[in-house]
């Protein structure tokens, strides 16, 4: 089972590495008008994400993914 997961991860990384190697991907520096908008930031609402992560960390069996999963509170 674990091998399957590792293989899955490896396949995904391989696909992404192929994707990144593709020369048509990406933009020129002068084409970053939309990407530069704060709405397009990966962490566009950092406080929302932080509050959400705290709630779900204390209410569910999973944490992390977007950022570090580690400790922080003894939340109930």
């Amino acid at each position, binding site marked *: 089972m674990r091998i399957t*997961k590792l293989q899955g*991860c490896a396949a*995904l*990384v391989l696909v*992404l590495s192929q*994707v*990144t190697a593709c020369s048509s*991907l*990406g*933009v*020129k*520096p002068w*084409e*970053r*008008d*939309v*990407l530069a*908008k704060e*709405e*397009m*930031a*990966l962490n*566009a*609402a*950092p*406080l*929302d994400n*932080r*509050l959400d992560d*705290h*709630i*779900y960390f204390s*209410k*569910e*069996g*999973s*944490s*992390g*993914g*977007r*950022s*570090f*999963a*580690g*400790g*922080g*509170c*003894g*939340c*109930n």
Partner: protein
Amino acid sequence: MQLKQLANISAALAAASCAVLGQDAQAGTVLDDWQFNSAILLYNETDRVSAGEAILSARGDFGDDKYLNLGLVVDALTGASATGAVAQPGVQCFTRPSGRGSYEVASGDTPLDDTFHDTRVQLDASWEQPLAPNWRLTAGGHLSKEYDYLSMGVNSILARDFNQKNTTVSVGLSYSHDTIKPEGGIAFAYAPMLLRTDYADDDSYQAAFNATRDRADDTKDTVDMLLGLTQVINRDWLMQFNYSLSMADGYMTDPFKLVSVVNSNGEVQQNLYESRPDKRTKHSVYWQNKLHLGGTYLDASYRYMWDDWELKSHTADVKWRFPVSEQWYVEPQLRYYQQSAAEFYLPFLQQSDSLPQYASADYRIGKMSTYTLGAKFGTKLAAGNELSFRIALYQQNPEQDGADAPGVLANVDLYEKVTAVMAQVSYSF
């Protein structure tokens, strides 16, 4: 001579006042280099926990792409939390985890400990700066303190841009050390919950209670590793892919949670304090997409997590921002989460079975699905400030996983749903 001294003094005063004025002017400039974000969240579960959380974060621009990030979080929780014990057709009596005081749970009700309250303060700081062209380092730490819990941690992320900054690869490492010191100490694994009414006097009860306690406090160490890949796909599409590894070593049992031991008719014979493994290794893959679609902004992410407790989860999260005027936007939000049970999750223990090495009846590591449905409304104000409101409904649906409910347990709700409402106001300035 005196005149010369006076002249010197006035010159010094003038210089000092200039310095003060200069500092004032400089202070204004310094503040202009800081961006502040603040938010207040109210979280309320029906008949259970209520929480309030306030956050203030500040980001200072020190020039040359150097930034200092500071954060302060204060939260307070109160209300009732599920103990893990099963509901029964009759009234049940429980002793609080501290050993002092007791409470009753009505017939048919899920046992909740209603004296749960805590206040937490967290401080964090990080510094980010370029190391070399296309290299960027962030290093930080946190300190979080609540009445019975202390967490301290450090973290660092190194990022490298490639391909005209269209590709970023990052590596992160974090370490945290947590200490828990619950009121009344930490019970032995499977220590019985004692009832004062079973003892003739306070002294004999206290002696028996003390014999169930192993130590006053315990610790947990967590090391996290993060590998990230960010890729610009085109002018309107940005993608991120993360792999995270989290290794925790130490006390991970919840000192407040119980497991009921039932007979063949489902009647509770005893409640025991739960026992969890002291090691946990979690893996997760996280995939996020940011898309600009016809003037709207879509944020869609998926996470798959698995660990050596055999808990696996899928999380899908979508936020879609629609501008509705020059200043206002509306952002519907939908999140779906589904997890399988940890291998040692048991809603109850059977009297006829021998005790397993580990057992927890905490529904949060049982089979469960949850969804969050919400909306955010925001407006841009003068000088780039922003005010927003967010409201969401969070629904937890615990599910049965294998174990059939014997006898009287068939007539009570062992997997009670939990509904919560979240309301948040944020202001950036």
